[in-house]
């Protein structure tokens, strides 16, 4: 997953290709070091595949994994931007619950169509985000406090909206957001060609984009990795995508949740890497004062980061509610901790300024695999919680150790 990380040139600024096995090896090791989190994901997958006697890798389970943990990834995308800018958002679980509840009431009591309810839910999320963003960016109260308050406020309001009961039986269109699949689009087959086709398109798209990026860098005489390694990485990743596509194709096809995730990753990857807004977020996180004095409108950026988080929290809430087909008072419990863990496992720094969308996704997947694998093994929720906490601690400790070794002080 190197499309969202820039390569630092080695000590020699050689143009285009690297000659010599030693340089190649050094490059690979550096790459592995930077992509350590990806290796960790693979390691976790392998571990649980073995522990569960392969159940983890069954098509139905792969599908379940994505659908059940989609909400973590949606939240992690928003959370990593919040963390990079130097803030935190503790309210996302409560906001998710609140929006789920609101959407339920809109459908059941106000007769909203399912798509209207989804749209309204996102709007509510944006308003919540604006509310919190206002206090944080313009009044200047630390995000920790504002979102802690939000955690309490919106959990409470969710209960108020629900009137101390659950709301169930959402319309099918709504439920599709969390449970739906693009099944048998071309007709019934054992292994769905549509799904495989999408997988192939994804691979082709990724490879083309990586080649273009590589060529672009070569044209500007930037360092690129040895061709052999590049091809190897492309082959590995393509194999991975193809295998997942096959697994999904053998079950019910592409989950709607996955489509939502793919669109989000694409958009936010571009925004965080290439847009001015994204640059401003990293600038603020790296040195707020310097950013201000360079003309960055820091208050505006802060505000919109929280509006964005609000929308994504709402989306996560809607997806979760749709999947459970239930809006209840316990919804969203602990979401914020999983989202924050995902961002930090994925490499975000506590002081801000560091963190990537790709990292957050991988961090979220690690948590997802942990959730899924431990459930298959029948491990109780109590131990699951302890394990996840431990993994978070280890992941960040490893990251700190790595950075210190690489020449920090």
């Amino acid at each position, binding site marked *: 997953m190197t499309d969202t990380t820039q390569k630092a040139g080695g000590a020699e600024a050689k143009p285009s290709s690297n000659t010599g096995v030693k340089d190649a090896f050094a490059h690979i090791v550096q790459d592995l070091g930077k992509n350590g989190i990806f290796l960790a994901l693979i390691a976790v997958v392998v571990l649980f595949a073995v522990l569960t006697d392969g159940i983890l890798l069954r098509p139905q389970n792969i599908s379940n994994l994505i659908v059940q943990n989609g909400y973590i990834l949606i939240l992690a995308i928003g959370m990593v931007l919040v963390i990079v800018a130097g803030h935190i958002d503790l309210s996302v679980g409560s906001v998710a619950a609140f929006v789920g509840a609101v959407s339920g009431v809109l459908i059941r009591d106000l007769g909203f169509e399912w798509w209207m309810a989804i749209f309204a839910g996102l709007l509510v999320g944006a308003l919540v985000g604006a509310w919190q963003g206002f206090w944080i960016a313009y009044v200047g109260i630390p995000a920790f406090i504002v979102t802690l308050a939000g955690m309490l406020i919106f959990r409470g309001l969710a209960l108020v909206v629900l009137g101390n009961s659950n709301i169930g039986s959402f319309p099918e269109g709504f439920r599709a957001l969390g449970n739906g699949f693009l099944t048998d689009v071309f007709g019934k087959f054992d292994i769905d060609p549509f799904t495989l086709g999408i997988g192939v398109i994804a691979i082709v798209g990724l490879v083309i984009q990586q080649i273009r990026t590589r060529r672009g860098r070569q044209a500007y005489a930037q360092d690129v990795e040895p061709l052999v390694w590049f091809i190897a990485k492309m082959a590995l990743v393509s194999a991975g995508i193809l295998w997942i596509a096959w697994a999904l194709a053998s079950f019910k096809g592409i989950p709607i949740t996955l489509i939502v995730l793919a669109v989000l990753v694409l958009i936010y990857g571009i925004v965080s890497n290439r847009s001015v807004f994204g640059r401003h977020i990293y600038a603020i996180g790296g*040195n707020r004062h310097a950013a201000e004095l360079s003309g960055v409108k820091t208050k505006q950026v802060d505000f919109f980061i929280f509006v964005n988080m609000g929308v994504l929290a709402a989306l996560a809430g809607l997806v979760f509610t749709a999947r459970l087909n239930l809006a209840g008072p316990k919804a969203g419990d602990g979401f914020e901790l999983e989202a924050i863990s995902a961002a930090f496992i994925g490499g975000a720094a506590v002081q801000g300024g560091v963190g990537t969308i790709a990292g957050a996704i991988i961090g979220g997947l690690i948590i997802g695999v942990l959730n899924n694998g431990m459930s298959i093994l029948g491990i109780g929720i109590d131990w699951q919680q302890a394990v996840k906490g431990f993994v978070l601690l280890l992941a960040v400790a490893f990251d700190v150790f790595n950075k210190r070794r690489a020449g920090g002080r």
Partner: protein
Amino acid sequence: MTTNILEMRSITKTFPGVKALADVTLEVARGEIHAICGENGAGKSTLMKVLSGVYPIGTYDGDIVFENEVVQFKDIRDSEAVGVVIIHQELALSPYLSIAENIFLNNEVKGAFGLIDWNKANLEASKLLARVGLKENPTTKIMDIGVGKQQLVEIAKALSKRVKLLILDEPTAALNDEDSAHLLDLIIHLKEQGITSIIISHKLNEIKKIADSVTVIRDGKTIETIAKDDVTEERIIKDMVGRDLEHRYPDHTPHIGEEILRVENWTAHHPQDVTRVTVDNVNLNVRRGEIVGIAGLMGAGRTEFAMSLFGRSYGSRISGKVFKNGKEIKTRTVAEAIDNGLAYATEDRKQYGLNLIDDIKRNISAASLSKLVKLGLVDDNEEFKVANEYRKSMNIKSPTVLAKTGKLSGGNQQKVVLSKWMYSNPDVLILDEPTRGIDVGAKYEIYTIINKLASEGKGVIVISSELPELLGICDRIYALSEGRITGELPIAEANPESLIKLMTMEKPR
């Protein structure tokens, strides 16, 4: 066996990218007052940090011999244990704690059951305060006393550690004349009590007054040690600078055009204490191709002026008018100031000027992202190209623009800051202490860059605490004192005495 209390032999210390100390030797005789002189970045503070254990054994080469024994300090506690105490330029006092609490920090006066005996502590503190001549209640909080008295608390703290060798880093930098004189007398008084002192200073008149010998350090090397009787200002300056004053600054033929910036009646108040005026009715102007200096003592209001002008980044109740090319402009936000062709390179580049965890190229583009936007997204490749061009033209010593700015030396960091502002294509640049903490070679490069900017028809305002620097590169110099412009001198009429007179002129009461 020697009468030297301290010998530092062949001390070498390197940081990534720069050799801070190269084979430095220092010999301090027992009971003397030894001064260390050198320009900013010469290595004086680094040497003292090696001596005091801030840079522990293993991070430097060479030997420290204290009282005839080779010592290997792992941290400050080790050095304090043998009687070496350092008082840093930025005092290490905790503002919300009392004098006694600070004196005995990490050295607490314990009573029964290992708990702190505050009564005893306050009593001991009073005795120490008497020794340094400070009449204050030991329960007074540090933030409630002035910096001159805080300095004395630091010395009292050193005395409580039974100091044998006292190191003072720029002790009078933040003091007024009266407090400075008192402090110098105290140091002589301590000498009579047998305490050896090392003073880092570049106030030559002070050094002449109290030092028994002077060691000059330049570019990380010991130049020479001068005995008291041979100390002259010229000799020290020549050692410090390495070349005669005339050749420190590049030649510059000014081509000065029309007025490009005029500031009228600019006033700003302190951000917390809104009744206090920190910038008082400043009027100044800059012309195309002109290099204008602003001279002033610490606290005169120079940075406050510049920052309040640049997007109201400092201060409250700001008023005044700004004119560019004769037309009034507004600079209410930083973005507005930049759009109107202003640029401001901050005084503290690490805190306010750079994103140290980011690479060179992103720092260079930071104020000008809109120039790199294609189809709504930042063009990474173009950004790389631009950064590379600046890397070459500004001679930024780094193999690639992808290196993180935090790893660069001070001089190169400053070049990145200047590149950032040059890329924003301003008409007027305000440079606040542009050569602070930079070695002599890099300073020359920066002066050359400033000249180039002027020759391109831009107006340049240079704020600096170093009078020789202003005299060496400016065409005209304003003097600022207590927030007011007290004078304006064309370069032909400017000299240190006249400037200092203006810089120290007090407000009529």
